[in-house]
């Protein structure tokens, strides 16, 4: 093992200056584009392999490839090639570092040196500015409805948008004999896509850090779908769920309401106001917190076709708890994961009837029906839980449906057993 003797300079230097006396000394080996000899190529590849190793370790967090290390160690001890490679390390870009840290730079956008960090701040400020401008436009626009703006978008040269292209340039310039595996390519892409922003969950009061855009879905479904074990309604926070449980399933709550205590909490966290009735709470939300007028905490939602399909699947799973109610529950009221949504009042009159008939919690429904009816109509109250003919009831401006009416939700959902109004 001769690697420490200072004398040996890979003597058989061949086309190096030694033999050619100064003319061909840099015979095209600096820039790898010009023809390289086989041994040099081998050395370049080893160099690139070293990069790949470091890339794997650092950027991808994978274990070092010890087999590779061994190999390189071997070449140290083995007979040296006749001439050391004279590959000049040419770096391309602002990240410019030779090895894997260059790729990390794509990810570690936040770690730029001071001067570039300033640019980053400016870009962020720009984005905030833009967001504000859009907000201004939106609210200056009609009733907060933001409209599509067809306009050119310009990007600064160091915008994270271009990071992928810059990285590609780096890799190509080193003749990417990096030979990334499928998985590594995927990781690299994921990193690139996710690298642009640090994300936090946008649901008010949550603030959880999101590890990437893909993870938002997972986060949302684990953290923001708190479901009621009594009626299976789903809420985005446990606080709302708990309010729901008190208001909907707690007789003690009702008792206090009846005695005139202000029990209905404002839904906005931190507000603290309590009102005496559902309606007045509603009004408070509209007046003080600019909630839309048709906002409904208890909803009579009609889930989408997709949702209904999902609900049906779950209903068959929960056989044990099945009752006529669940089977008849065509609007998904009693199924899990019915997302808390806006009330849609399309066939309320007769659907209400449906659910009244089948519901196990008359009291609960009474309250709900109250709300619905309040909204729908000024007059008729249908609070009876007994079977009754829907026939031609009209509420307010509704057309009468008559006996032949079958709620759309039933019609459309072929999997539900027909629940004709009796």
């Amino acid at each position, binding site marked *: 093992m001769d690697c420490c003797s200072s004398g040996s300079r890979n003597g058989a230097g061949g086309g190096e200056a030694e033999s050619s006396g100064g003319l061909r000394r840099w015979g095209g080996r600096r820039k790898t584009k010009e023809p390289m000899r086989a041994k040099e190529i081998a050395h370049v590849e080893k160099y690139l392999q070293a990069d790949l190793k470091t890339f794997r370790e650092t950027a991808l967090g994978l274990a070092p490839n010890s087999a590779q290390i061994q190999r390189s160690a071997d070449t140290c001890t083995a007979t040296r090639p006749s001439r050391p490679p004279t590959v000049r390390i040419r770096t391309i870009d602002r*990240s410019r570092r030779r090895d894997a840290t260059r790729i990390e730079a794509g990810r570690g956008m936040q770690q730029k040196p001071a001067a570039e960090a300033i640019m980053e701040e400016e870009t962020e400020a720009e984005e905030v500015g833009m967001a504000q401008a859009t907000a201004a436009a939106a609210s200056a626009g009609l009733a907060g409805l933001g409209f599509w703006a067809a306009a050119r978008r310009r990007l600064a040269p160091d915008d994270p948008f271009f990071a992928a292209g810059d990285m590609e340039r780096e890799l190509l310039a080193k003749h990417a004999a990096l030979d990334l595996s499928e998985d590594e390519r995927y990781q690299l892409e994921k990193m690139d896509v996710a690298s642009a922003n640090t994300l936090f969950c946008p649901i008010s009061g949550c603030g959880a850090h999101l590890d990437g855009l893909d993870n938002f879905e997972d986060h949302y479904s684990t953290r923001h779908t708190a479901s009621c074990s009594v009626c299976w309604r789903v809420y985005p926070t446990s606080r709302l769920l708990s309010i729901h449980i008190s208001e909907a399933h707690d007789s003690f709550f009702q008792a206090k309401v009846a005695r005139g205590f202000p029990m209905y909490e404002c839904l906005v966290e931190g507000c603290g106001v309590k009102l005496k009735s559902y309606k007045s709470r509603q009004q408070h939300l509209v007046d003080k917190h600019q909630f839309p007028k048709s906002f409904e905490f208890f909803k009579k939602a009609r889930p989408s076709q997709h949702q209904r399909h999902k609900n049906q699947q779950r209903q068959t799973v929960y056989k044990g708890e099945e009752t006529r109610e669940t089977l008849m529950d065509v609007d998904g009221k009693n199924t899990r994961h019915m997302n808390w949504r806006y009330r849609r009042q399309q066939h309320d009159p007769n659907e209400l009837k449906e659910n009244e008939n089948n519901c196990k919690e008359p009291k609960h429904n009474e309250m709900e029906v109250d709300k619905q009816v309040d909204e729908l109509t000024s007059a008729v109250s249908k609070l009876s839980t007994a079977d009754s003919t829907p026939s031609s009831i009209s509420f307010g401006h509704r057309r009468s449906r008559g006996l032949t009416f079958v709620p759309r939700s039933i019609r459309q959902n072929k999997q539900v057993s027909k629940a004709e109004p009796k």
Partner: protein
Amino acid sequence: MEEGDMVIDEEKACLEAKTVHAVEELKSALSNQGKGSQKKKIEVLRAMRHLLSQSEVPPVDAAVKAGVVPLLVQYLSFGSPNEQLLEAAWCLTNIAAGEPEETKSLLPALPLLIAHLGEKSSILVAEQCAWAIGNVAGEGAELRSKLLAQGALRPLTHLMLSNKGSTARTAAWALSNLIKGPDPKVANELIEIDGVPNAIIRNLEKADEELATEVAWVVVYLSALSERAISLIVRSSVPQLLIGRLLSSDNLQLLIPALRGLGNLVAGDGYMVDSLLTVGNNITGQALSGLIKCLKSDNRVLRKEASWALSNIAAGSFEHKKLIFASEATPLLVNLIANAQFDIRKEAAYTLGHLCVVPARSAEPPNIIVEHLVSIVDGGALPGFINLVRSADIESARLGLQFLELVMRGYPNGQGPKLVEMEDGIDAMERFQFHENEVMRNMANGLVDKYFGEDYGLDD
């Protein structure tokens, strides 16, 4: 510790020892006089250069710590033989290619490196110095401004005009690093230098792909940073040349800057879309073909940046929208919005949405091109937009909501809301009930109120 690790450490120590020794040799050779001293200098320089250019991790750190840079500066002194200058510059090049601190260690060498760029220097020496300077410039804005203050711009530019291909290429590459900002000042200066616009045009037109690639990167940064440059470039033959390269080359290294340069020009100056790429001109059809070629590419960078460029053309006139809509681009984009990664989906969304609207007077909702909207929705783009609504990224969510507004307002026979509902759009919008962003909340709530309110579904 594994045996592999142990061997590595040994090897590393071995290398470091050699490096320290080499530095010592460099030092002592400097003080040599007399016969054979010049030869000795070259020898020790070469030894250093070998160490720094070997394929495993070169011992840059060890060399710098051992004080190699000040020594190399001395080897760079005026009047030294070319071979010596070359080897010294080569060593500095590779040191500059190391860690940031290592690059910074080149500071004392900069004035000499810049000086040796001059027209009296041997072209090979100048080229090597340009390479070293390019590495330094690539490190960061601070070093860039140092180089500029010391006058690196002009001599480098002069080298870019060289007839020698490798020199022009190295100089162009170094320049692209030097002008990349964020200060636009340099870019502004560069375009004003005599001969630069012509050199750019000449090289984009005739040079081999390697040189054209580096020149294209210069165009990328000029067009991203300098208003003056954009204004000159869009009126020259450069756009046509970029488009030509885009169409004719299959070399990814060239395609990336050609595409981005085109994208920057389209984004940066209305002249491109309004005057140059007007519908009916040959160049417009070619540009579209070039962008479509990129949309179809296996390479995701091309797909992504082409989508962005296309979106800016789709934001143009009604004629542009018709042209793009009728082309292959539309089904490609619909596929992208459904299946691609997030960042590409966003760009595809921009383009598809732009195809569907013509701006109205301010504060009024945009006019919808119903034919386009229907075709795009029927083509299956809606789930992709709804997916964006679900995104944690505000901009994407807003984009999705805005498109849903178009669908619900503009899809014929009032079918919009139903279509949206069928794809779980209501669910997606309701997420915003408790979104912390008030604008988003209001937007989503407003839409649900308006389209899924009391009267929804009555007309069945």
